[in-house]
């Protein structure tokens, strides 16, 4: 399998505060990788380094063999990285449709905008019904659907999902995970960040565990579900 994303020993921080210490991980084409950990472990920071909002002080990030060190954040969507951010981060005063259109600004995605929007509507029929409504007026679950749909609009090669289950009712959480694994089974490569460890391990192919900014464990979903440390610290068994 081809390497999609390769993070090699990055240190990342905000100002004087270093958050990530020598983090390395890889995502191969077609994989569903989860990055797990508690609040403040550095999961979102890792994703923001991939999408270019933060610059590593040390280490490299390569995407499909290309070093991203000199690629500004706004060029990374075009390369095929779609970031579905934590807290959804929709454009609240734009309609559902406009939010989706904002997901497809460049190149092929822009040319195939209508087509992709139809695909997104077929995955999330609710969004079709609400397409002229303002994004800020949607319910939490619908907003999450829109955030994922907006990410898909760029026809990405790699989908970064940051805490998609955050703040959702249990039924909606299950739905979000179901959508993620459906996308994966259609061939999408996914890097998922989650605090909902059990759910994430059940759907992913491989996972990494971050603690205090360092990768402490990695393995397949089943391996980690059986791991005594994971069971005690994250599953409460």
């Amino acid at each position: 399998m081809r390497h999609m994303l390769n993070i090699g020993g990055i240190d990342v921080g905000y100002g004087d505060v270093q958050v990530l210490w020598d983090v390395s991980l890889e995502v191969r084409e077609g994989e569903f990788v989860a990055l797990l950990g508690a609040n403040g472990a550095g999961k979102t920071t890792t994703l923001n380094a991939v999408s270019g909002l933060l610059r590593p002080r040390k280490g490299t990030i390569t995407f499909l063999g290309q070093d991203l060190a000199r690629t500004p954040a706004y060029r990374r969507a075009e390369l095929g990285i779609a970031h579905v951010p934590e807290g959804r981060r929709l454009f609240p005063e734009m309609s559902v449709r406009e939010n989706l259109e904002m997901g497809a600004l460049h190149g092929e995605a822009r040319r195939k905008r209508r087509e992709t929007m139809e695909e997104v509507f077929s995955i999330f029929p609710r969004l079709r019904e609400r397409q002229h409504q303002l994004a800020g007026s949607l319910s939490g679950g619908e907003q999450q659907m829109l955030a994922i749909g907006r990410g898909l609009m760029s026809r990405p090669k790699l989908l970064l999902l940051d805490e998609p289950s955050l703040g959702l009712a249990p039924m909606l959480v299950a739905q979000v995970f179901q959508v993620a694994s459906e996308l994966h089974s259609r061939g999408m490569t996914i890097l998922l960040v989650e605090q909902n460890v059990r759910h994430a391990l059940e759907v992913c192919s491989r996972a990494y565990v971050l603690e205090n900014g360092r990768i402490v464990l990695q393995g397949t979903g089943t391996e980690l579900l059986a791991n005594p440390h994971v069971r005690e610290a994250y599953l409460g068994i």
Partner: protein
Amino acid sequence: MVLLGQAVVSGILLGGMYALIAMGMTLVMGVMKIINLAHGALVMVGMYATYICFQQWGIDPYLGMFVAMPLLFLLGCLIQRFMINRLLHVESILPENQVLLTVGVMLVLTELVRLVFRSDYRSVATAYSGKTFFLGGVSVNVPMAVGFLIAMGFTYALHLFLTRTDLGRSIRATAQDREAALYMGVNAPRVTVITFGLGAALAAAGGSLLLPLFYLWPDIGHLFTAKSFIITILGGMGSMPGALLGGLALGVAESLGATYISMGYKDVVGLVIFLLVLLFLPGGLKSLLARR
């Protein structure tokens, strides 16, 4: 009754032109989260550009504005690109040092114009300057009516641009969530440059429309900075429909003040409204619209 109608009509006409200027400030406010205190100075520079066109080549102000607008667009882009954006990366005691920078820009522009044109009052005298027509008993000043119509035309064009084009939507997206816009692949630094250019071009447009109605001198910019600031607050910061309503409201309020209190107090009316809005309706007209 006729007097009231007269005051309201001329207030609305004038307010439409104020609104155009204020929309420029609102655009910049939305994307950069700063009040551009050089906005009035940009109006003033735009007015001088149109004035020169008229004085040197006899170009009508309504055509001259199409010279002033691209010029000011360029000036705005340069200010954002080489001055304001540079400050974004500077760590200092005051996070609002971009606002202070715009004060500096305002001073430099005003004094440069004074150096060239002196502080003399100037005005353009066109064939239609003093013309009026009657609309059901209310007399309407021709340059006011034309200026209002052109201003509304620009407002509509701006609305189409912001809602129908990718660049316009990117501007709104950047204003609503800059980071999310970056995730989507919006070149946010470029968007800020274009936005500031656009804001300056709107300032020039509004200024040119007001040129047949106002005396022109280098310090007239302060008047427009104050008016746009009042309108921006009145409308609810960053809201375009709010800016339009705010502009019309300020125009009418000033006109009523000039008619029923005294010509000399018309600017006081605007400032009193400004204070009242800050005290009792801090979200501006936008918050009233949202409450529906």
